[in-house]
């Protein structure tokens, strides 16, 4: 569920679209003097239509249909979505569907939404990348099955019907299941042109009753994650990282660690010290017994308080770069009779997925198998090869389903994956190694949603119209210093300003400035990336404009979104479903927000009830979403429901704090995602559409914060401009 579309994509094409060569140049930058290429099998997207049986779908003699997915599933349901596309056109029996992760063939698996330049899961692109590709694979596979049956039965192919995994020939009364013709079908010529079903013919896509194929194994403990992998002789590794980012190992005394029963070895790797043991508990105890002297001379020692002071100072001077200048914000502000000035603060956030990060490495003959939640498998393969001192063709990437992700498993240097390779290499690959980070390792491991601050000055003229919007953003670049740094354009990291720069609102005179800070805390995309903070600033600021001009918040948005049918459609739908025009129930206060990200527009109305002067409960959230065709409507709902809970937890009390460069919140006792007792009732309304699908994993997240903050303002008259709310309500203005 991350986000590289901003860097690879055609959707943000307004900016640019890198070529594959640019991407390769980017990856090469990870190691000086090193050329990292894709595996030999990786080809630029080919003109010829690929044989679907050679990489998209496998049918066993047992009739099991296995779809090979180009995208990785971390819970967002892309395996289910892709399987739906294949099964629809193939005519498969849904109960026989399985899905495996695939990699190592750019021609087949390159992300189409990134122009095929790399395989990867991110930017909520999985369904848009798969929409044509996997429906076509299903249709071609069906055609080839029919051809094979027609030959065997000596009947015209046009007389063979396909339904639920079965081929029929009515006139002769012959029938067979897919499994009977799978081998023969794979050898049939690949048809170059197949017709896809029209929406009226769909039996799976868009159907309300369609269930996920993978719910049952998630209710009986049999759905396997990386943590569940077991191999004979496998050792479990834990790792101790420097207590501050940028620290290094000076010396290690492993005597006590090695004395812990079950501990087999202690090795120093580039990122820290690893303990290898026969079981996880011994690896944890062994790590506790390590005596390490760290070299912190080049480490980041600033804490959140120091960074906050520096960022506040940076907000007071012009940004180093201008991300958007339209009209003349300065002159327009000069005409203003009223101004709104607001400073927003956003903390570092941890992904905190429930399965702590891990990877497994095993050498089999001359092949090194690397198991994990590989969001960018070809890049990880190249990095693993470099770490192991071999070539990418000797590295076999095994893509596992993961217990959450939220962006954390797409890292430019492959962190936990490469660390596992380093550990295995340090013991000469003599045993399979499972590197399991503990919760504390995971939380203190960096790669956070960056801390950001915004300063906004908005003018309102005598007629109550917007007169200038000046917006300054300060924070770390996610792309800088990574293999994706080539995607920074004219000094602007689009992930820092997306959602503010080039806003969809009709704001004729605006200026968006950016100052990217240099901080040694590693940062990363976190479910919905820049929109996590930009939508909050924009949507609460628009609400302040409504209040300052005496306009209804929905009416003002309607005005500013004139000529934007998708946004207006969502706004009207959510307003209607939330009965915005009627007075809310006694004690209920409402707030609205509308925002587009990853090609999808979402509107939300949050209803809160005050439980004290500053405390409240979010009781209900009504959402409207336009994501193009809803391949699995119930999964679209599920993603929005989950996004509301994920986003609400983050704005209520999630924060990752640093003191003297050290992470304070290292477990769920201090870093507190939402729990069930705070989960509101969520109602999701989907705009009917047959347009190609856009993202759904991320776009719900940015809305809930501003919708709730606007409801809080409606209740109290106070604006929450510092997150999380736990902090912000005490600074309410």
């Amino acid at each position: 569920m991350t986000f590289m579309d901003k860097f690879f994509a055609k959707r943000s094409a307004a900016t640019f679209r890198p070529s594959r060569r640019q991407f390769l140049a980017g990856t090469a930058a990870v190691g000086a003097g090193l050329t990292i290429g894709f595996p030999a099998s990786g080809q630029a997207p080919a003109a010829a239509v690929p044989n679907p049986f050679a990489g998209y779908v496998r049918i066993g003699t047992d009739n099991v249909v296995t779809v090979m997915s180009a995208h990785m599933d971390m819970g967002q349901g892309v395996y289910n979505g892709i399987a739906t596309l294949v099964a629809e056109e193939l005519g498969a029996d849904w109960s026989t569907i399985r899905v495996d992760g695939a990699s190592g063939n750019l021609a087949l698996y390159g992300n189409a939404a990134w122009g095929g330049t790399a395989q990867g899961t991110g930017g909520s692109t999985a369904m848009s990348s798969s929409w044509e590709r996997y429906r076509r694979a299903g249709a071609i596979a069906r055609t080839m099955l029919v051809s094979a049956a027609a030959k065997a039965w000596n009947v015209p192919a046009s007389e063979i019907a396909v339904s639920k995994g079965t081929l029929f020939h009515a006139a002769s009364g012959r029938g067979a299941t897919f499994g009977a013709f799978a081998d023969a079908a794979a050898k049939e010529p690949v048809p170059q042109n197949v017709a896809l079903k029209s929406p009226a013919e769909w039996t799976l896509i868009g159907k309300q009753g369609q269930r996920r194929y993978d719910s049952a194994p998630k209710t009986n403990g049999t759905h396997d994650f990386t943590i569940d992998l077991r191999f004979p002789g496998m050792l479990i590794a834990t790792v101790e990282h420097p207590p501050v980012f940028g620290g290094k190992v000076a010396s290690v005394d492993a005597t006590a660690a090695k004395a812990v029963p079950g501990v087999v070895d202690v090795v120093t790797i580039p990122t820290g010290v690893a303990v290898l043991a026969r079981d996880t508990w011994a690896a944890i105890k062994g790590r506790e017994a390590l005596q390490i002297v760290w070299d912190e001379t080049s480490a980041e020692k600033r804490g959140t308080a120091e960074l906050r002071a520096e960022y506040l100072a940076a907000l007071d001077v012009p940004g180093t770069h201008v991300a958007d200048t339209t009209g003349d914000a300065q002159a327009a502000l000069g005409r203003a009779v009223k101004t709104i000035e607001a400073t927003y603060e956003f903390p570092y956030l941890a992904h905190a997925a429930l399965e702590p990060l891990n990877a497994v490495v095993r050498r089999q003959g001359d092949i090194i198998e690397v198991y994990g939640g590989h969001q960018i498998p070809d890049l990880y393969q190249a990095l693993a090869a470099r770490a192991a001192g071999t070539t990418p063709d000797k590295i076999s990437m095994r893509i596992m389903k993961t217990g959450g992700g939220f962006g954390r498993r797409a890292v430019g240097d492959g962190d936990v994956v490469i660390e596992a390779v380093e550990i295995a290499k340090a013991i000469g690959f003599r045993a399979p190694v499972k590197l399991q980070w503990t919760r504390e390792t995971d939380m203190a491991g960096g790669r956070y949603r960056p801390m950001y601050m915004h300063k906004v000055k908005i003018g309102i003229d005598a007629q109550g119209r917007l007169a200038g919007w000046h917006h300054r953003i300060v924070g770390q670049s996610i792309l800088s210093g990574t293999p994706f740094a080539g995607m920074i354009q004219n000094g602007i990291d689009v992930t820092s300003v997306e959602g503010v720069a080039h806003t969809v609102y009709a704001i004729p005179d605006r200026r968006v400035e950016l100052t990217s800070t240099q901080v040694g805390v590693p940062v990363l995309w976190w479910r919905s990336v820049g929109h996590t903070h930009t939508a909050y600033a924009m949507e609460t600021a628009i609400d302040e404009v409504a209040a300052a001009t005496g306009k209804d918040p929905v009416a003002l948005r309607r005005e500013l979104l004139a000529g934007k049918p998708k946004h207006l459609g969502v706004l009207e739908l959510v307003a209607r479903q939330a009965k915005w025009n009627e007075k809310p129930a006694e004690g209920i206060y409402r707030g609205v927000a509308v925002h587009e990200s990853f090609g999808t527009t979402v509107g939300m109305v949050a209803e809160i009830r005050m439980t004290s002067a500053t405390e409240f409960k979010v009781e209900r959230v009504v959402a409207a979403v336009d994501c193009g065709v809803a391949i699995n409507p119930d999964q679209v709902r599920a993603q929005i429901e989950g996004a509301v809970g994920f986003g609400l937890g983050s704005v209520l009390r999630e924060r990752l704090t640093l003191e003297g460069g050290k992470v304070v919140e290292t477990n769920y006792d201090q870093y507190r995602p939402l729990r069930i007792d705070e989960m509101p009732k969520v109602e999701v309304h989907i705009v009917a559409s047959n347009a190609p699908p856009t993202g759904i994993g991320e776009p719900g997240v940015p809305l809930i914060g501003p919708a709730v903050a606007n409801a809080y303002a409606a209740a109290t008259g106070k604006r929450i401009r510092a997150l999380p709310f736990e902090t912000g309500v005490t600074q309410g203005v």
Partner: protein
Amino acid sequence: MQMQLDVNGRKIAVDAPPDMPLLWVLRDQLGMTGTKFGCGMAQCGACTIHLDGQPVRACQTPVETAVGAKIATIEGITDKIATAIRASWVKLDVPQCGYCQSGQIMSAVALLRENPKPSDEDIDAAMQGNLCRCATYQRIRAAIHDAAKSLA
């Protein structure tokens, strides 16, 4: 230390340090990986099992304290209530990533055993110790109600 455990009705001999959490005995020694590791300090509930019918966090249960108790895990819980819970979980497609769901189901089964017709508030109180980072909470609530209804 040699110990005998009663896991899902089977007597199993294990050899482990007495302070090793039951979680790691189950996962690493017995290969029962349905019980998950999330935090190691009883904050997330992913490792929830039943000890003599009571939901406990296996990451904070030293194995020696489980000797003599009936241990039930996600792999072995198959009574009427568990079957109903699973059916409702599938019917409503509760899981997203699924990682926390073993623990959620163990807590939900324990709740319905105590309280066959829980209110939303009862559910929130009983399930509050089980984190779901995908935030499938709305469907967890609905599935518990659905299972309670099917058992009534």
